[in-house]
């Protein structure tokens, strides 16, 4: 069983120590503030629908670009300006998954959403956020499969 990307594990450890809802929300907002949408050099609007995350109401898009070292660089956008949770999730994934071994990315379980956002997250939001993770994991698995 491959370990998770180190930065993702670091985030998971951080969130594991969080004791209150307020603390969790503040941390997620701080992470969402770090979100940067895909550069225009990679993709411009209107985006190709094949990059859309199906099931995400915040209209997230994910791009996975091959790197010379065999890893992937991940880029994201969230079209809904109110999609703050999606932005936080994308920021975590961008910082954690770009350039790390694909086996680590492929090992990520969508359930980590609940470590970040808590168990009381609405079902719809939990599903949408898991689908962003699934899109990243799927890209890594496809590259591994093709080797």
């Amino acid at each position, binding site marked *: 069983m491959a370990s998770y990307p180190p930065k993702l594990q670091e985030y998971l450890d951080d969130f594991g120590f969080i004791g209150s*809802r*307020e603390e969790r*929300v*503040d941390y*997620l*907002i701080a992470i*969402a503030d770090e979100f940067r949408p895909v550069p225009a050099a990679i993709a411009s609007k209107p985006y190709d629908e094949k990059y859309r995350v199906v*099931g*995400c*109401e915040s209209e997230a898009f994910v791009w996975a670009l091959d790197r010379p070292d065999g890893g992937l660089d991940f880029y994201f956008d969230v079209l809904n*300006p*109110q999609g*703050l*949770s999606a932005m*936080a999730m994308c920021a975590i994934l961008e910082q954690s998954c770009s350039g790390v071994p694909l086996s680590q990315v492929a090992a990520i379980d969508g359930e980590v959403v609940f470590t970040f956002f808590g168990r*009381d*997250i*609405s*079902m*719809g*939001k939990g*599903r*949408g956020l898991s689908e962003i993770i699934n899109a990243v994991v799927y890209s890594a698995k496809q590259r591994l499969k093709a080797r």
Partner: protein
Amino acid sequence: MSDISSRGYANPDKLVSTEWVAAHLQDENVRIVESNEDPLLYPSGHIPGAVEVDWVKDLNDPLRRDYLGRAGFEALAGRIGISPDTTVIFYGDKSNWWATYALWVFELFDHSNAKIMDGGRLKWLEEGRELTRERPTISPTSYSAPERDDSRIRAFRDGVLAHTQAGGQLVDVRSPGEFSGEKLHMEGYPQEGAVRGGHIPGASSVPWSRAANDDGTFKTAAELRAIYLEEIGLNPAEPTIAYCRIGERSSHTWFVLSNLLGFNDVRNYDGSWTEWGNSVGLPIEK
């Protein structure tokens, strides 16, 4: 979108515009309340002076599937610093879906001096109006509420069964796929599904979002009448029950029928499909 007063609503006083809210930010008789599905939105930026009412931790009983009781409502009202005379303005994400839900719960406790900010959070945002992360300092109040009145605007399973057997008006506000039984849950909400798919016998399908424009504002009365009266034939004088999956989307339709179109007797069945579609022996149509 036209002025609220020119849209022909039965009760235009239940809606206020973003301009009205901007002009009443310092009004001591007004409390602005944000209610969202996403718990990150309010802390990330809200209308100056607005407080938050969260649908999970503030409005629902933590153990039973029910709403808060009288003591809980009094505590909530005290925390957000309102009196029975305070004008409460709700707004939120998803075209005010959660704002209308909160307003409906407040009306269960007879706090009827409550209104919706037309267009909700998105309209305020898109108009470039001020948002702040600063939480307001609220002086707590002592609020004396009546017992929750479930008899007027809330429907329960047995009442819905009797209503449908008598041929009463029912509006299913879920998506067409849920109504037909093709889907057992709303897209993206797999764990709030049901054992059986379909709809309550006799229900008409009108997804809640048909009442809203793309910018989240409500359609005009004429447009709403074309949908609810002319298209599906509802009679405003007859009792009507709206339902969805857990009663949140249908609170939006409840607001439209009762306040904007002036239907006499509209109830929200908050048990909705997660109760009906899981209950043993209840009739279902596909």
